[in-house]
């Protein structure tokens, strides 16, 4: 991954179609120093952002219009810039099969909705620090 390593320069892709959830995550992450959140409400836009930008991490909702989160994850992992990109999946309660599939496809972590925004930030920071 050629992602920037300085904590002050992190671009996080958020693929989430629910506007309330997106607002919560964007607001909370944007409070972190040096973090820019690039929000996409559908899979196609998310992939376009991933192509145009250099991402530091991605948070992908599984259920998305056009392309779902697992498809985006697969596409990211095929891009040599993103083979080691920290990816967190957002999933609804009860969709364990999706979680397992996500891990098989190379997701690093997952968070179940409803979720705590503070916990999401903490887990993402841990993932970023690990890479």
């Amino acid at each position, binding site marked *: 991954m050629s992602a920037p390593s300085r904590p002050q320069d992190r671009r996080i892709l958020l693929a989430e179609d629910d506007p309330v959830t997106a607002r*919560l995550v964007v607001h909370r992450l944007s409070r972190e120093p040096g973090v820019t959140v690039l929000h996409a409400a559908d899979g196609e836009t998310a992939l376009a952002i991933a192509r145009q930008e250099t991402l530091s991490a991605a948070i992908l909702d599984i259920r998305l219009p056009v392309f779902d989160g697992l498809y985006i994850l697969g596409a990211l992992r095929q891009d040599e810039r993103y083979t080691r990109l920290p990816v967190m999946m957002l999933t609804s309660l009860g969709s364990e099969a999706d979680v397992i599939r996500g891990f098989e496809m190379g997701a690093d972590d997952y968070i179940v*909705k*409803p*979720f*705590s925004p*503070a*916990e999401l930030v903490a887990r993402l920071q841990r993932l970023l620090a690990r890479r």
Partner: protein
Amino acid sequence: MTPADPLAAQAVPIGDRGFLILAAFIGLVTLCAVGFVLASLMLRGRNNRIARQWAALEARWDPVMLEVLAGAADPAVLHAIVRSGEHTWFVEYLLRYGRRIRGPERALLSTLAMPYLYAVSGDLGHPSVERRARAAQSVGDLGGGAYRAELLAALEDRAPLVVMIAAVALSRVYRPDDVRRVIGSVARLGLLTNRLLASMLQRLGPESAWAFREVLADRGRPAKLRTVAAKVLAAFNDQEAGANAVSALTDAVDVDLRVAILDILQRIGSAEHLPIVRRLAGDPEPAVRGAAIRILSRAGEEEDLDLLVGALDDPVAWVAIHAAEGLRRSGRPELLARLAAAQQRRSSVIVSAMVLGDAGA
């Protein structure tokens, strides 16, 4: 036709009468169409107005709300920008967030809602079912237990929707004293499926199993409620339910109840429960017979092999399938092979079981 002929003056030729009927019909259809279009326009206009109102409220509340949830602003700052007349909207706004977050931020939503919930709780007595249901949901989701008495009263509501919402809300703020009333209220939700009711009551958690055992043992309770209780106990894998299950099986008549009890035994049963299961393997009801054979196919003993072989000829295919699976599990493939070759009525079932067994299914 002359004006001097009064009968002729009143008569309308058949062709004209047909035209009048057609014209009246077309007029009626046109009127209905116009009415439908007007109603649609009015509904759309109303929805647009509501959407605009929401957009305006969110634009005003969101920036502060997000700061409050992030711990960067005091709840009082948000309260200060909620105008009178917007209290119900604000509670609804908080519910939208409440469905999406948990943890410390979720508790903060209750704090934010508290000053407005009293007014909303007044709707629990509203004539509209929708308003009562919404009020129950609001105080249940955001009241954090403060409206327990109101929710207990809502369990007696005449509308099943309100009862259901109150029961679910009370299961979140579980108190041992409430369990009996919550379970009792469910008995009135007769239109809902047993599976749905059981899934709703499972929220009360395994610590409430004692109350479900009590219901299962009570022969005076409706069969539906006892069935739901049995399903919940099965879902809890309640180890203490065995004695209640066997006792209830001895005189239960209702098919669903008996199948639900057998499901408990399948999960937590032991060898001591097998005699009653064997007896039910010959029950005239296919669902009961099938459930019993399924248990014997998984937990039966050597003496049950003959019973399973006999069940291969059961007129109901899936009873025979359970029996064939049991024989496969018994580690006697040669017995299955012999039966499959014997041109029995259920040869195909036996072969299927063998094939599935070979495939590791």
